[in-house]
């Protein structure tokens, strides 16, 4: 099968790759661009470990074809920190121990950032339901939710 040439922007960088029409955006990020921050937990859109944003829309990159990234803008966990400084969410996740094994963390961070960009003042329930597509098997979510609520409060204060 002949390959498709894709030009896209990932975390602000212009990139190109060749992909099989069947390959997902997640496959392309991980295997072609060496951006292994997004994880494959299921490949079927059920776990959220592969969460990225595509033109500012939160998606499961396992459900998007690599070819669909053509001309679009992709953001992954690797693009969250600015230079040496971590994003406040990243900082708070460490501080609150909102991660154990950390396999869900990139997806949860990307998904949460997308939430706070839209809604800087979510209730606990809103956070819980927004993250219903991001599975974490280690933490019971308690410390994740606390870290997020606290980050949101800090960001509101700062703005």
């Amino acid at each position, binding site marked *: 099968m002949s390959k498709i040439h894709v030009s896209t922007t990932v975390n602000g960088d212009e990139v190109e790759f060749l992909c099989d029409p069947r390959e997902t955006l997640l496959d392309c990020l991980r295997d072609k661009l060496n951006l*292994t921050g997004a994880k494959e*937990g299921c490949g079927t859109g059920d776990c959220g470990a592969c969460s990225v944003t595509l033109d500012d829309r939160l998606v499961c990159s396992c459900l998007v074809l690599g070819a669909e990234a053509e001309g679009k803008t992709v953001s992954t966990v690797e693009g969250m920190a600015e230079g040496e400084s971590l994003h406040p969410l990243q900082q708070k996740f*460490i501080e609150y121990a909102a991660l*154990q094994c950390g396999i869900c*963390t990139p997806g949860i961070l990307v998904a949460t950032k997308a939430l706070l960009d839209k809604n800087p003042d979510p209730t606990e329930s809103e*956070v819980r339901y927004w993250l219903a597509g991001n599975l974490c*098997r280690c933490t*019971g979510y*308690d410390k994740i939710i606390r870290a997020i609520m606290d980050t949101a409060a800090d960001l509101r204060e700062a703005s």
Partner: protein
Amino acid sequence: MALDEPKTTDFKYVGTRPDRPDGFDKVTGRAKFGADMSAPGMLHAAILRSPHAHARILSIDTSEAEAMKGVKAVVTRADFSKNVPFESGLSGEFWNILENVMAGEKALYDGHAVAAVAATSALDARDALKLIKVDYEVLPHVTDVDAAMASGAPVLRKGAADSSVPEGLHPNVVRYHESGHGDVEAGFTAADLVIEDSFVTEATHQGYIEPHACLATLGSDGKGELWCTTQGHWHAQKVCAALLDLETSQLRVTASEIGGGFGGKTTVFIEPVALALARKANRSVKLVMNRSEVFRATGPTSSTSMDIKIGMTKDGKITAAKGVFCLQGGAFPGAPCDESAMCAFAPYNLENVLQVGYDVMSNRPKQAAYRAPGSPMAAFAVESVIDELCKKLNLDPIDIRLKNAAHTGSKSSFGPRFDAIGLVETLEAAKAHPHYSAPLKPGQGRGISCGFWFNHGGETAVSLALSEDGTAQISVGTPDIGGSRASMALMAAEELGIPYDHIRCTIADTATLGYNEISHGSRVTYASGLATIKAARDAVEKLCKRAAAKWGIPEEAVKWQDGFAVPSGPNAGDFDPIPLKDLTADMGATGGPIVGHFEASPEGAGVSFATHLVDAEVDPETGKTEILRYTVVQDAGKAIHPTYVEGQYQGGAAQGIGWALNEEYIYGDDGRLQNAGFLDYRIPLASDLPMIDTVIIEVPNPGHPYGVRGVGETSICPPLAAIANAVSAASGVRLRQLPMSPPRIVAALKNQSNG
């Protein structure tokens, strides 16, 4: 192991909550998990799996796949060792693993591996699988535990039963356990009320979000490299070497960052396959499972069928307890029926107790450990009956548990007397907790349960090297599954007297340290922790020696205090204390590198108990249960990093909630798994759970220098029963089958109103 009295007070670093050293890598996406590693010229592999629950493999034709462009190697069972002996029970565990990793004469469950391909791309490898022709003769199958024990059930494999199994049982019963003491029949006669009941639980999966993944390199020179996500890379090394006729030391295994295991990554599934392909292709091979493979072919828990009988006097004294625990463990021996039996009544101080366990094979994947294997199901059955007794006799469930509680020095249900334990303390804390007295609304119910797990020590080696600038690096051999790198650094900081931030803890590969048993049995903070403390003390001894030489006094005249060598008393001489970094600065000239070691198999892992409180509300119309409030009270012995202890408590409780309410393996009549994905096998979501409150009790374990007990597993023991008891209180029906999914609750309510 003889130990001094544990140090329990005046800690400077232990008990604080610094950031975890792996946090930065994990929030930035740079942490390398199993599937995140690549090698130049690497191939991708895929595994062909049986669509049948039970079938004889008549032939496998791989020729077309081998001829496909891009395919570099195809392996079947013929490519693995022929020198692994078949033996009965668990003595033949290498054979069991080999047979599980790649089917021999028969496919034993839906998803059993029968062949594998390595190709230049993952898509090619998957396409090539379709070209492999397997001729199966489909055989009758059995997936239910009671059915598998019944006469006439299809026999999975003759000769698998070991000598523990009494005469006359079905060949699928492969191990038997019996323990207890006293006279249960006399005890039941002395009771005012005896309740006898049966319970069943379905298999659940550990549900780690990271599928199994590895990267293997192996040459025909017999030397190999393996990178994999595992709880025990020395174990992986040993098993892979045996299955492929390699010398153990020639295979170096490196553990990746591990994306959850919970017991499910204590064995190997794909690693030998990747190595066999790598050897055949003479290229590095990456093999990553997809989620469906994880469900179909890696270890879920056992499913169970249990009969419990408990007698009680009117004032709440348990007079006798008996339990029969039948555990289905898939197509191989190893279901933890002995653990179920031994944990079942452990929270109680009983005069008369008898517990029996059956390990039963069926056409399902080989069960694997899942957090306190065997204990949660047993607690579900036993603690449900205790709850019923309390209800019928109108007794407070905490008072009754306190009245019968095992305590320091009491004889355990499984034999030995308990050393220092903290069950009573957890019950008292639960009773005093505001949760226990908080008002409930109509339709809501409160449940409580105790839980028990043994914990484990095991082979452990640690080395601690000091650097010239006065910092330290610890090499441990137990993959970090719960924040252990932080805990090790805290314990080393305490001993060395240097700040936590000056210590880096690394998980060493198999070439770097002596054998380290798997990260299982909640053993890491206990055993690697003990080894880290001992290694630090060894380094300190060497530091004191250097100081003694500088001062020209005997070694015994130097002691270590808060990061400084100091003269041990006025007679030792009057010298200024020397800080650690002054001793390491010129260590090359004063005797060479300073490294502390410890290698042993510590045996003082303290057992642990927990008490959980839960409030639930049941919607009678839909049968949906909502968890309103949850409190975990557990004895940690000593919490080295309290935040991570809380994390273990919360994680165990959340998994228990899933097990109690939703999670189950569903098999069709055809013996195929019907819900091999996260959509249909639904683990708890953020929107399903409340905050999970935690109370850390600290009753020091005399077997650890700081009193540590393992904490990772006990937290999953009480939730199943606690939730069942809350559901019963809320809805008025007693569910004896897990999970208590909405359809089952609706059916139970309907039954009750009809009956």
